[in-house]
């Protein structure tokens, strides 16, 4: 997915190139292209580390510090996950990116009927603080930051992280966590939403407000264009929709009489890297500039550091193919190169076997090594934004900026992001694009190596690429569910019930009123209330979202 559209003549020469975002690419670029676009060095580019940060948010970028690598990790019980965390850290990874199983993401305990068959499957199973204590045992939480890939109950996991750190003796102002916590994007793609839109946004607002006051090193929200793109959005829409979502959260927190300057510096982003490399590079450069400009001009933010577009640029899942899985090793390396040429501050790379299942240790380490090669061997640390000044790159960066603005205007025309999601406009637009693109893939309009030699990609029945190549599959283990349930039973028997009840009652009161739920959640976690109990309080008070059923 994600490849450009090429129109060729009968000899195979390229006649027309169109990127997914709608940018048409010429055979060659020169100074006249920049002139036509009205390119001005100070306004459009500037020095690295200077407004508008097109080149970099830092004056020396990778020269001063290589990117942070955060492979998405987690499966089975907290014990298994802890071992994998330690393996990745021992091998040089310097941040964590935690995967939770679906019951945890949806606020159900491991013994809930809906959790059946899912416990520990796509991430680790967390029921209570006990599990976090196991998962993070022996990890220096004052040195290693953790991304928590959870949204519907991100507030609960953020509270749980703080409670764990406190139990281990780390002060809350020393720890750094980035819960994903982007509920609006879940409603566009990925689908791990629980509560109705307005309550979901309120919880995001609560966590931002709380982090501003209590968790100075944490980033309470990571807005994910990533999954929106995976769902079928173009690169321009990926950025535009993420920024429109950011505005919805900013508005919610501003309603609490908090100045944007006090919190926008804590926003983090998660963007995708697959597809045409030049288009990705233009996307990131335009995004850094637009974010800074939007905060400065629309929200009056002046402090330079608060204008930075920070985040994880990486992944690339939708670009990987199930066919000939080993090709994904090379494909991923090129995506990572694109991320490095874009100045990704933090990165991760999907592993070559992820079209089948979650990665094995071998494939996860291959991804990590790929990222290291770019920094240590190939020369990506040598100089900041090496493509700056290229007639081509600067022209398409300006064109990408125009495309992103166009897409943002459409959302505004629809009444903003909350409204566009509530009535399903965005979801409908994105899924229809995904359909059209997939049709094009199958018709051979878009080329994918190893998939569309002549437009046909069906394999003969019974043929299995995992057997042809040596893809080992990560195995799901039924024992994880049994272990999790046993631990949960033990917990329910041994904890102080009164403390649990009291803390949950206080949480309910806060949820019903307008008090920030976060301090109450921290207390609930310390009392060993379960994720299902805390989310249950929210379910009772807020109800569940009814999605507009468009396809």
């Amino acid at each position, binding site marked *: 997915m994600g490849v450009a559209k090429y129109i060729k003549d009968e000899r195979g020469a390229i006649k027309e190139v169109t990127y997914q975002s709608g940018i048409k690419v010429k055979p060659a670029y020169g100074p006249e292209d920049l002139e036509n676009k009205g390119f001005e060095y100070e306004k459009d580019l500037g020095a690295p580390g200077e407004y508008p940060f097109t080149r970099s948010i830092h004056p020396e970028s990778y020269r001063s510090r290589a990117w942070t690598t955060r492979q998405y990790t987690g499966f089975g019980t907290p014990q298994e996950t802890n071992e994998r965390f330690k393996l990745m850290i021992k091998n040089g990874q310097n941040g964590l990116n935690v995967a939770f199983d679906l019951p945890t993401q949806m606020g159900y305990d491991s013994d809930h009927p809906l959790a059946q068959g899912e416990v520990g499957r796509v991430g680790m199973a967390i029921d209570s603080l006990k599990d976090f204590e196991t998962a993070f045992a022996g990890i220096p939480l004052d040195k290693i930051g953790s991304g928590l890939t959870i949204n519907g109950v991100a507030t609960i996991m953020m509270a749980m992280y703080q409670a764990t750190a406190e139990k281990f003796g780390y002060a809350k102002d020393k720890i750094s966590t980035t819960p994903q916590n982007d509920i609006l994007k879940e409603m566009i793609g990925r689908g791990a939403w629980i509560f109705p839109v307005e309550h979901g946004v309120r919880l995001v607002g609560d966590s931002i407000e709380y982090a501003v006051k209590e968790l100075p090193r944490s980033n309470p929200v990571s807005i994910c264009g990533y999954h929106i793109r995976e769902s079928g959005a173009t690169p321009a829409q990926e950025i535009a929709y993420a920024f429109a979502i950011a505005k919805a959260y900013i508005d919610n927190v501003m309603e609490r009489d908090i100045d944007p300057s006090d919190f926008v510096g804590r926003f983090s982003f998660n963007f995708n890297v697959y597809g045409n490399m030049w288009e990705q590079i233009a996307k990131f450069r335009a995004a850094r500039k637009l974010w800074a400009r939007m905060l400065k001009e629309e929200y009056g933010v002046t402090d330079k550091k608060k204008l930075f577009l920070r985040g994880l640029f990486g992944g690339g899942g939708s670009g990987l193919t199930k066919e000939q899985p080993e090709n994904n090793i090379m494909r991923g390396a090129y995506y990572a190169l694109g991320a490095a040429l874009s100045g990704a501050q933090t990165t991760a790379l999907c592993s070559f076997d992820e079209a089948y299942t979650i990665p094995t240790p071998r494939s996860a380490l291959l991804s990590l090594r790929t990222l290291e090669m770019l920094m240590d061997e190939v020369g990506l640390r040598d100089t900041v934004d090496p493509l700056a000044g290229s007639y081509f790159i600067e022209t398409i960066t300006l064109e990408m900026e125009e495309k992103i603005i166009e897409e943002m205007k459409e959302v505004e025309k629809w009444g903003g992001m909350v409204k566009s999601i509530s009535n399903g406009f965005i979801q409908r637009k994105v899924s229809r694009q995904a359909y059209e693109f*997939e049709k094009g893939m199958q018709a051979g309009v878009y080329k994918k190596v190893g998939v569309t030699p002549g437009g046909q990609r069906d394999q003969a029945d019974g043929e299995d690429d995992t057997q042809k190549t040596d893809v080992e599959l990560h195995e799901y283990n039924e024992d994880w569910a049994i272990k999790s349930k046993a631990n949960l039973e033990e917990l329910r028997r041994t904890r102080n019930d009164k403390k649990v009840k009291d803390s949950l009652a206080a949480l309910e009161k806060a949820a019903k009123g307008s008090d920030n739920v976060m301090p109450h959640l921290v207390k609930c976690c310390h009392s060993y209330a379960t994720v299902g109990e805390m989310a249950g309080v929210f379910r009772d008070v807020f109800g569940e979202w009814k999605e507009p059923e468009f396809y």
Partner: protein
Amino acid sequence: METKNKIRVLIAKPGLDGHDKGAKIVCLALRDAGFEVIYSGLHQSLDQIIRTATQEAVDVIGLSIMSGAHLPISEKLIAMMNKNGLGDIKLTVGGVIPNRDIPTLKEMGVAQVFPGGTSFDKITTGMKLLFK
């Protein structure tokens, strides 16, 4: 008059997995191929799927499962279909399905399996073939 003979399909997302791009684009492909398509929406319990299939009098239930839980989910749904007198409804399964699980699914009674990457053409033809 054509509509009388249209195959009615319920595309359903069972369980907690929220990755619905595949389900949605298959809905569109089936619609364009002349099927009548009902989409369940996300996070459906198997009870809800059975209820919708009954109320909508569908000919096929197409499950979309990306989490890896296709074996336990399919097994349970088939048992429930039989118990509820829906044994004549065909069941198909799509999503992240390793090829090695296909024979197991078929033995259970799944009529067709469409792993990720199956072409629209193969899905629509495969579904039509179930009624030949």
